[in-house]
């Protein structure tokens, strides 16, 4: 009996390793094929990503709460350490903001008056939905996040994504209950922007670093460190005038931008549905999450 089993093992072991080698070659081939296919036919992969992120949404949502509370614990300890200094800073800032508030109110009244006098065509309205960030691309390849709102909530590919601080990115793919946001720092992000003071147009190109570049800037463009960059609204996807960031450095060949968004505290984001007036009926517009359609 024992001798028989020994002989069977003698046969089985090389066979097993042969099968393993075959499986390995097959899987490596599959990985390479899928990679090439995803490059050539991104739509196929987008759909798959949508389906998988939909399936993973409940799990990621569940786990993202402890992750967030861990982060807030770190933050709270940090805050408790210099609460006095922070208070003084906030009081000072509050006083300054009050001053600005009265100036802003005055200017906006005046602006309204002038628009009425000139019969300016009103800017299209934009509605919005707010969603939670449930996944962050952990790794050095891409800068994307996953949110817990998707096609069912009227999130569509191409829409602009903002936080209270400024432009964050745009929607690149959607599932039913989830959507992937390409952050403006990603290698593949290109956003039409304008230098607010001089009205010079440029394209903000991400490069996987915290500071995206200004591209296609006119040779004689007057850009200085500290210039505010806002969206230009060209292309019609992004509303014009969304704050993007400030120019952080100007070199011989390139200008870098420091986005306003705090990437470390990206917890809730807002997806803008920017519609040209009269384009879509009210019922087709984006609603708030949870609103029944």
């Amino acid at each position, binding site marked *: 009996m024992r001798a028989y089993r020994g002989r069977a093992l003698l046969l089985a072991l090389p066979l097993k390793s042969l099968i393993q080698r075959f499986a390995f070659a097959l899987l490596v081939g*599959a*990985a390479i094929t899928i990679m090439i296919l995803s490059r050539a036919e991104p739509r196929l*992969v987008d759909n*798959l*990503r949508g389906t*998988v992120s939909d399936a993973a949404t409940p799990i990621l949502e569940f786990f993202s709460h402890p*992750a967030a509370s861990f982060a807030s614990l770190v933050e709270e300890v940090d805050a408790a350490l210099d609460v006095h200094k922070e208070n003084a800073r906030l009081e000072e800032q509050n006083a300054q903001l009050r001053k600005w508030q009265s100036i802003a109110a005055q200017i906006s009244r005046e602006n309204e008056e002038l628009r009425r006098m000139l019969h300016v065509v009103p800017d299209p309205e934009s509605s919005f939905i707010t969603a939670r960030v449930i996944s962050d691309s952990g790794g050095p390849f891409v800068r994307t996040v996953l949110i817990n709102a998707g096609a069912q909530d009227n999130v569509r590919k191409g829409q602009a994504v903002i936080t209270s601080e400024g432009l964050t990115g745009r929607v690149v793919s959607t599932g039913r209950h989830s959507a992937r946001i390409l952050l403006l720092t990603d*290698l593949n992000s290109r956003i039409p922007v304008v230098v607010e003071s001089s009205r010079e147009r440029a394209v903000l190109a991400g490069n996987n670093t915290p500071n995206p570049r200004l591209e296609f800037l006119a040779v004689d463009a007057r850009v200085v460190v500290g210039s505010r960059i806002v969206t230009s609204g060209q292309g019609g996807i992004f509303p014009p005038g969304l704050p993007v960031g400030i120019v952080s450095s100007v070199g011989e060949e390139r200008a870098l931008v420091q986005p306003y968004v705090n990437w470390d505290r990206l917890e809730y984001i807002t997806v803008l549905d920017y519609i040209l007036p009269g384009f879509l009926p009210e019922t087709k517009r984006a609603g708030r999450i949870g609103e029944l359609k």
Partner: protein
Amino acid sequence: MRVATWVERTDLQLRGLTPFAFTLLMVLASALPWHLPSFAPVTPAFTAMAIYYWSIYRPDKLPYAATFCLAMLLDLLTGTPLGLSALVYLLVQVILNSQRTFFHGKPFLVVWWGFSLVMPGIALVSWIIASLYFNTLVPPMPFVIQAVLTILLYPLFAVLLSALHRHMMRGI
């Protein structure tokens, strides 16, 4: 010899899934938003640690097909070019499969040293593939930082993994 009851058999089978389940948890950990300052681009390669450990000690419980599926899930969830992690981790596994007996019975420092050789390899190959895929030079710094962070974190995970290994895989 006593015949094992179905409860015992199911118990054995479920506990045999530990390597897969743990690696799956590590995939999810990579995709979670940690909200830590500048952490996202350099999030340690949790999956790499799990695959390294199980490839050395229990390759039978983490076959190539399992690695492939887990790595595909990682790519789908994090938005990495689809297939990249699968390719890299399969290569890691095939190399470890030929070298793994070398690590058996060796002190932890030797195993850690092995990981400190594998991780830069993972970073370099990933960087090359990503640069080819995007057809541009992807900034290499996050890859370097990620590799260093992962190597430094490995001992912590090794403690966790060997505890799991001892308790969950007893008699398997």
